[in-house]
């Protein structure tokens, strides 16, 4: 009989369904095959013209019906696709899920295609005045709904029959991890026995790319796209903007076992800590990230020596990788040099709001398959960052526990600890 409560007496939270979409493909099977063979999904941008752009590559998801329809429709489709895979795998009714929905998704704005089309449907007055006048004459809600921050979750709630008021959240690049954390907490508080946590991001528009570019956050290694994302390398020069989605069905272990579900992994602990240093930069001593890792370990009831593998945030920006190394080496001490730590982003780029969920999905697969996906493009190690990044080739290894890091603009730091087996 498995223990159903954790070290703090709370219900243990199991994962019973996993779904994922990235530039590498739809579903776990394709993604895992590509990821473990070191294949990159980064490719030249074709969705919009790249004239005047310094960065002309991305990890966009270009193969879905909504890929050219704008950020809101694509984000919805990404979320729906991953959630469908997860709910099916869990063996639950995909039209009557019966638990709450937590959605990490990008902030929404009126798409430029719609802005142009509204504006040019008339020629009186100008600017905002014209847009407002045209807007109030619209006879359908499609454009309106793309501007409502709750609309994607509302549609997903309808689609999957989730319970109650769905929560849409943003903690920037930590959002996906926060969506999982909210699900874990709801189950631990006894509010529900299952939850659907999704991170989805289909917002790689020209404007999004330009905004990150203006902050000097993006790689400009355009010539060989699949080589551009090179976490922990000396010549890393920024992240690669990408899209994707990850979904987990979270369930109390008790409920999962009671209905005979296959337990795919355990969400053991979550930790967070906000940084008050700067809007985009981390505190130089790494203390908030360190505190987030330690909080996740404490929440999981695990010591520093009980983590087998780290699924790094590893964005490939000079700043992040340096800070992540600092914080990990502070927490894990000398052992850090021999712990495997790899970055999925070397292959899929940075899926922003989805990243924490996508990478949690890959972390769970890492444990189940006993294979660690590599950090590719590790040809020129940064001598200041001495880590075992599982360079360039996958590694077979028994992995019982994973720490997955997510750090974001606005001082967001969220870490998840997952385990293969219940205690």
């Amino acid at each position, binding site marked *: 009989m498995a223990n159903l409560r954790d070290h703090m007496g709370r219900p243990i939270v199991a994962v019973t369904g996993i779904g994922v979409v990235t530039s590498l493909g739809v579903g776990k099977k394709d993604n895992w095959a590509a990821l473990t063979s070191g294949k990159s999904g980064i490719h030249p941008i074709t969705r*919009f*013209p790249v*004239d*005047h*752009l310094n960065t002309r590559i991305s990890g966009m998801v270009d193969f879905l019906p909504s890929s050219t329809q704008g950020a809101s429709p694509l984000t919805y489709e990404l979320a729906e696709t991953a959630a469908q895979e997860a709910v099916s795998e869990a063996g639950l009714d995909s039209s009557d899920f019966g638990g709450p929905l937590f959605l990490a998704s990008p*902030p929404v*704005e*009126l798409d*430029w295609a719609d802005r142009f089309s509204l*504006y*040019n449907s008339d*020629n009186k007055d*100008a*600017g*905002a*005045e014209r847009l*407002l006048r045209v*807007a*109030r*004459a*619209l006879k359908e809600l499609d*454009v*309106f709904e793309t501007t*409502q*921050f*709750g609309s994607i*979750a*509302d549609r997903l*709630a309808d689609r999957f029959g989730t319970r*109650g*008021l*769905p*929560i*849409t*959240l*943003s*903690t*920037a690049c930590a959002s996906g991890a*926060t969506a999982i954390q*909210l699900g874990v*907490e709801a189950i631990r508080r006894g509010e529900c026995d299952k939850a659907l946590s999704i991170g989805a991001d289909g917002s790689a528009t*020209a*404007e999004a790319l*330009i*905004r990150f*570019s*203006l*902050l000097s956050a993006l790689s400009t290694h355009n010539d060989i796209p699949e080589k551009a994302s090179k976490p922990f390398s000396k010549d890393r020069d920024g992240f690669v903007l990408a899209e994707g989605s990850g979904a987990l069905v979270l369930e109390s272990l008790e409920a999962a076992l009671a209905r005979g579900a296959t337990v795919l992994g355990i969400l053991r602990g979550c930790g*967070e*800590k*906000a*940084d*008050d*240093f700067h*809007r985009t930069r981390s505190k130089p001593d790494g203390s*908030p990230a360190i505190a987030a890792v330690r909080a996740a370990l404490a929440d999981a009831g695990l010591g520093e020596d009980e983590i087998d593998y780290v699924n790094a945030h590893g964005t490939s920006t000079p700043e992040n990788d340096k800070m992540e190394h600092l914080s990990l080496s502070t927490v894990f001490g000398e052992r850090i040099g021999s712990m495997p730590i790899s970055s999925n982003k070397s292959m899929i780029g940075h899926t922003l709001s989805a990243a924490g969920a996508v990478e949690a999905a890959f972390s769970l697969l890492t444990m189940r398959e006993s294979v660690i996906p590599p950090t590719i493009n590790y040809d020129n190690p940064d001598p200041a960052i001495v880590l075992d990044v599982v360079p360039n080739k996958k590694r077979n290894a028994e992995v019982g526990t994973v720490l997955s890091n997510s750090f974001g*603009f*606005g*001082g*967001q730091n969220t870490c998840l600890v997952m385990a293969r087996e219940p205690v």
Partner: protein
Amino acid sequence: MSSPHDVVITGIGLVSSLGEGPDAHWQKLTQPGLEPVLEATRFAPYTIHPLPEIDWNLQIAKRGDQRQMETWQRLGTYVAGLALDDAGIKGNDELCATMDMVVAAGGGERDEAVDAAILAASEARNDRDVLLNEKLTTELRPTLFLAQLSNLLAGNISIVHKVTGSSRTFMGEEGAGVSAVETAAARIRSGQSTHVLVGGAFQTEHSDMLLGYELAGYLHRGPWKPVWQRQGGEGGGVVTGSGGAFLVLEQREHAQSRGRKIYAELGPVASGRARRRRGELNAEIATLLKQAALPSGELLTISGASGAHAATAAEKAALDANPALAVRAFSTLTGHMKEAQFPFAVALAALAVDRKAAYPVFDATVERAFAGAPTSVLATAIGYHQFEGLGLVKAA
């Protein structure tokens, strides 16, 4: 019976066209026949309730921090500071570092001039995607992105006020405000948090913020009217206002141990998602009222009704069906503040409980008098388009 893990309200920060702070709002809102502060020309044909004059330096000491934000983030950071001050937490490093935060947020302001120039140029160009690249790469201020990101209101609160226990941003109009309060309360009741900063802000004085409503024709046009009297009027019934509300929610034991004044206890918070196209809203509001475990007898009700025709009619019908409810729709006097709507309603409810007095009617043609000292007050936020919630505030 009180218990140590009860959720109590120990700090209130408010800004609206009526002024700033709980005292100013109480004084204004208890004046019978108070006239709203309106701005009817700047955004004609829309009327809005504008921000009052604010000395940002009072809550955001560094000019550098102020410059990094546009008005929405500045406003939210300011109101959060008011709440922290009010709870005696501001400047207390230990309490700030262990404080959790849930912010209900939309997005920040775009650069209207850049957008207008691009739209104007688009009339003469067919290669609009190239035009976009051309203009955006050269004319956008790089750090404006950070002033637009939803989670950067929370980020700025961390930077300016040092609240760093945790930081989460919920999105989704009024529903985000409901979920933020509900989640914060659940964390405290379960012992996960001892004190949480929760709230939101809305800055309506920007064309995109109006456009967010008007793409579905939700804004009221023509002469201003109280919330309950906009049915059948020109437009969709919503009059917006700039403002914000933050609350410090605290475990009762935690508040008592540091000797803080308690405004009120936050009782049950109920939230829902009616499928409105199927006509479920009236029944959903009735269900939420049941979940709130309303006390018997007359109950003062602070309604966040927006004026949006369908949602406001449904809320009115559901509240009218319960003759014990004496309703006050505060948006008549403040305008609709989107994500901040529910925290604002809870704050006004807590003030009435604390001051042991009801607000006079805000609209004499529809609302009725409430005599005596309210010991419980209901707060509602029925979304203008989707999501709904309510909560019961009780004497401490």
